[in-house]
């Protein structure tokens, strides 16, 4: 029997996602090769990426401060299965490795690519450093990955 009747469609919805006041500052910072965080002096909290609402008190984070590009790896995964990337509509290149990194002096973690692709070489507490690309445009991709750091 042939496949039952169905309607097929590939709607392509395009969006212009606003980075917002805090996100715009963060992306500008990346262009300059700097990692910016937002701070809540009351709690106190320093969070990357910078955002308006404090994760502790839900109040307004009032300061933007530069933090160290060095940090500690807390978790990671090697992504090895194929799936369509919603941004492109085609399969995302695999495998790739990303992790959760706590920048020194901050109170949360930041999720980004790792240069190391072999998960057996990674460990909790490992020191890593954010690497930037040479020509930066003020976008997340200015950040290449986290690479192992010697310290």
């Amino acid at each position, binding site marked *: 029997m042939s496949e039952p009747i169905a*309607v097929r469609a590939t709607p392509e*919805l395009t*969006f212009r996602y606003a980075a917002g006041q805090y996100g715009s500052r963060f992306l500008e910072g990346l262009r300059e090769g700097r990692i910016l965080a937002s701070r809540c002096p009351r709690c106190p909290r320093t969070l990357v990426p910078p955002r308006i609402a404090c994760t502790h008190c839900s109040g307004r984070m009032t300061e933007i401060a530069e933090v160290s590009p060095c940090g500690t790896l807390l978790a990671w995964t090697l992504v090895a299965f194929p799936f369509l990337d919603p941004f492109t509509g085609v399969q995302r290149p695999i495998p790739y490795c990303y992790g959760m990194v706590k920048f020194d002096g901050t109170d949360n973690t930041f999720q980004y690519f790792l240069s190391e692709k072999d998960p057996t070489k990674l460990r909790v507490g490992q020191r890593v450093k954010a690497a930037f690309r040479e020509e930066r445009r003020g976008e997340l991709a200015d950040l290449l990955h986290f690479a192992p750091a010697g310290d």
Partner: protein
Amino acid sequence: MTGVSILGAAQTRHVGRRDDANYMELAFEVVEELLARTGWTHDRVGTVIGASSDFWDGRTISEIAIQDAAGAAGKSASKVSMDGAFALVYAAARIASGAFQTCLVVAHGKASEGNPRKIANAGFDPLYQRPLGIDDHAALGLQARAFLEGRKLSPSALAESAAQSREAAARNPNAHRRETRHVLEADPLHDDEIAPDSDGACAVLLGASTFGGVELAGFGCATDEHALGARDLGQAGVLPKAAQEAYRRAGLGPREIDVAEIHDASSAQTLLWREGLGVACPVNPSGGAMGAQPGFATGLVRVLEAYERIVRGEARTAIAHGMTGFVGQAHCVWILRRRS
């Protein structure tokens, strides 16, 4: 009687494009203002209900964006994927159940980030109507013609109604200011007879009636068939049914309502929904949705406008109406009453 009251409310100014704010910042704006106005703090808010659309936000589980802004992390929270007026039903139920004393309701919508007509197309019957390329404006045109011809009205009725909404919106500092042109958009509707695509947010704090505030006297909801063509679009459909439920719960009749705020996506709907509610009072002194239509926040803004009129002493009772579905496939009617 619901045993629940509105303790405070806040809205953004509604505009065509808020490039300066992402969803978290948009929600934060209204929550911060609401707390500042009422003197409430996050730690005294029991639970949070969001209202937003994953399609309009371009984001699955769209409420994730506003969790920290609404103080929802660590609390019991949920999201209604319909107009904020429906979210208010769930929020009020959480309080009336006795489980919570207060509930923060946050609704947001940003039409500017996506393509509104294309997103609207995705909201029609996927098998038979969406492939034809129909969108919300075309559906509003079909409805407006059915309305005019069913009542033997001339198209000038639409223009007159739109002019009234425009005048009212001009007096409302939060309404969406835009250039309109009197050119046909979806015959018989002109560009200036269709509600705008707006960016904005709204927050309402509900509490048990022991906290005072403006009483939520009653509500009613009803759902209609989805397909265009299933009913006479020129009639109010299930809106009278939703309204009857609200009147019954409130113990009030339509003649006892002082002011109505209705969700009108077109100037035909301003007239049609007024008829469906059966009210004879002033309608949409804020300009209504014709003055600003920030997605799923639109109906909650109607509740806010009704609430503020009662707080200012301009009305003793008010109706606020929200809908989901471009031609009113689901309606929610709220009746607000000043405490005696």
